[in-house]
């Protein structure tokens, strides 16, 4: 067992890596009522082309399979796992991203029983043709809900601008058409490939004893089995963007924009570069920036600008999201400011103030077990440990910010997505 301690955060993380390839982590939070557990697999919407480990057959799956499987894993021989959690007074859920699927529950009482259930149900789905058909209706409505969600449209149109071939540009849930041919066999093929312990991570946070947690893991997972080797295929992605702009009309009140840059997922130091971009964003258009003040006073912006830094192993981009009466004018101002920043010195005092604030924001995340769990899982799935940020917030320099500006704010790879009123 490995113990990692952060002096700044006053938090400890216990880790155990098993021969089967499973990694389990526990972060004790004494005094908290809520306990939160997650069981995740490296199977997201971008994992759509692979070799079946037993039949050695190459399988290409339609869009939306990982998400569909997420829904169906809850189906067990003796009922729905979701109902079983509810019966124990626990609240369960799951989500699918581009890179992973995670199952989770939280509870204030009876943690061990719920935790056993989590580990058991994710390894034992009971999928029938009938239940697959039924689920198509439910997921169909989930897809329809997102079709009416302007933020979602803005985001996917942006990804569509960025990417030529990378499947990240496709909605994780697929479309009503792509999920139509999904059947039981296909779901089991994916399950048997990607839900192997070697491809999975367990994380628990709350007022728990790490030894007890690991004991349950060892009783519930075949920790000594041989790890599976998963062979996958990914399309090559050119560094250039697919389109530089996409604009759609939608049932919204005010135009929305997402503006940003595509980058290659080649990092020198993924955490430090992410922090540097974050500081650059804050200096550029954060609430304490000159530009934000100017945009606000000129009526080009009425609410804070959102910042998206996506540094995955398979793709990378950064973007700014906002609402504006005149999105193109707002974007033009942002571009102008980026160029100005690139050609001038970073103000040391401003850098220091923002660095401290972001450090405070980071520490604050450790207030909530929900936040810890979600952030931990998203990070560990890209081989980053969220505790490692603490040190990097201290190490980052204004030279790093300067470097990040040159590397990631590259006008050659810019794209704009606009959603405007009908």
């Amino acid at each position: 067992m490995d113990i990692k301690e952060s002096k700044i955060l006053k938090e400890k993380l216990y880790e155990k890596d098993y021969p089967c390839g499973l990694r389990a982590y526990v972060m004790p939070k004494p005094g908290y009522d809520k306990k939160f557990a997650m069981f995740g697999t490296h199977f997201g919407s971008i994992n759509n082309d692979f070799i079946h480990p037993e039949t050695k057959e190459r399988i290409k799956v339609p869009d939306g399979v990982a998400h569909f499987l997420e829904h169906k894993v809850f189906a067990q021989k003796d009922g729905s796992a979701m109902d079983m959690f509810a019966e124990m007074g626990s609240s369960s859920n799951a989500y699918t991203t581009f890179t992973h699927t995670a199952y989770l529950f939280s509870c204030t009482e009876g943690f061990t029983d719920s935790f056993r259930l989590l580990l058991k149900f994710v390894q034992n789905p009971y999928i029938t043709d009938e239940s697959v058909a039924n689920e198509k209706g439910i997921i169909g409505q989930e897809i329809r809900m997102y079709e009416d969600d302007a933020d979602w449209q803005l985001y996917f149109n942006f990804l569509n601008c960025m990417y030529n071939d990378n499947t990240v540009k496709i909605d994780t849930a697929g479309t009503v058409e792509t999920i139509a041919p999904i059947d039981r066999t296909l779901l089991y093929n994916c399950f048997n490939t990607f839900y192997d312990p070697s491809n999975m991570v367990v994380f628990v946070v709350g007022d728990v004893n790490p030894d007890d947690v690991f004991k349950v893991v060892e009783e519930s997972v075949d920790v000594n089995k041989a790890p599976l080797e998963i062979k996958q295929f990914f399309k090559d992605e050119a560094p250039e963007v697919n389109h530089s702009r996409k604009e759609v009309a939608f049932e919204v009140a005010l135009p929305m924009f997402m503006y940003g840059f595509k980058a290659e997922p080649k990092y020198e130091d993924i955490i430090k570069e992410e922090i540097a971009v974050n500081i650059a964003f804050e200096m550029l258009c954060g609430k304490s920036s000159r530009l934000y003040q100017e945009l606000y006073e000129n009526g080009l912006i009425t609410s804070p600008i959102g910042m998206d830094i996506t540094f995955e192993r398979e793709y990378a981009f950064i973007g700014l999201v906002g609402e504006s009466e005149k999105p193109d004018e707002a974007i033009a101002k942002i571009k102008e400011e980026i160029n100005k920043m690139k050609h001038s010195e970073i103000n040391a005092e401003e850098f220091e103030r923002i660095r401290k604030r972001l450090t405070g924001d980071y520490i604050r995340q450790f207030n909530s077990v929900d936040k810890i769990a979600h952030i931990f899982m998203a990070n560990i799935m890209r081989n980053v440990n969220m505790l490692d940020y603490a040190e990097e917030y201290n190490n980052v320099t204004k030279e790093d910010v300067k470097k990040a500006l040159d590397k990631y704010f590259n006008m050659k790879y810019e794209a704009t997505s606009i959603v405007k009123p009908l």
Partner: protein
Amino acid sequence: MKIKDGVRAKLIKSGKYKTNMLGVFFSTPLTKDDVSKNALVPAILRRGTKNYPTMRDISIELEKMYGAKFDCSVSKKGENQILKFYAEFVNDKYLEESVTDKIVDMMKDIIFNPLLENDGFKVDYLAQEKVKLKNIIESRKNDKVQYALERCYELMAENEPYSLCEYGDIAGLDRATNKDVFEAYKNMINNFAVDIVMIGDVSDDEFNKIVDSFGFAPRNAAKITTVTRIIPEKVKNVAEEFDINQGKLSLAFRTNIEPNTKEYYEMMVYNGILGGGVQSKLFQNVREKNSLAYYAFSRLDKYKGVMGISSGIEFKNYQKAYDTILEQIKDMEDGKITDYEYETTLKTLKNSLSSMKDEQGALLEFYYGQELISSEETIDELIDKLTKVTIKDVVEVSKNVKLDTVYFMKGKEEA
């Protein structure tokens, strides 16, 4: 806890968080005449003070306080408009210097010391904040799931203050003069009911000092409005067309049940069994069994005595979804409630209420809500009362649930 007339304070002590939270809430009954002017007050106060004349100055100052957070908001609880000023800041014990005093000073500066010109607010700021509030009002429809239920309530309460949007309305914002807004501001400071709520690692003494330092004078604040008993004579049906892909079906019911009464606890359990969670009748029947929707839930507004149901469906499934929902209501009345549904609901309620103890923001809202209805009840006491509610009580309380309005947000092609 009452400090003086119209001024209350509440401290919730806990050492487990890395931050402390402080909220100053002003409340007043919602009225058509004042709602827009009141909404402009926090919007304009956060723009600048005599000491920190721009938002940027305020943000820079907050960043210096180890990234303390400060913001304002406008909301409604039942027929009351709530203006909230709140801060979240790192617990002094993690720092070499105290931020608590600094952030309290900053809050006081924002509330009591606004940037003025010619005896009124800065003209530019007022104009900009009017545009901002209009944007917020018009953008409500962007979130269709939320908007469909809000719109349903609005139609139900057509002639009641409850139908007013907490941010006011376009005409009211246009009409509001600088003088009007300044008067609304003075009214807030001198006449609105005030609650100061704090959560964190703070002693009684320290808290009392903070409360005193705000120096609110006693006031004869308007009483918060409670449930107005209305029994719908006939069901109102409204459908509206939008350019959308999924229909949103919302139903509004009157319960006429006051918070703090025995019936209210019964209603909470009723709502849980009907549509609060995966074990509920709506989730199980509308979603799992009939595959009609991805989401289907019910929700109470305890300050108004109403319940709403909402679900996203195919346009063509309107009738089937409507019938399925009403069947669940009928089953509740007929006492068709299984032990599983009842017990699981109690556990679900208990879990979600206990979980709130870990979330500072949720706790702040909960305890302010309790203050508002003059209740000293803690989360544990609330849980205790809920566990005493029986299936028989739930069936009995179901008689109060009366359908008032059905709203369908439908597609443009649909006839």
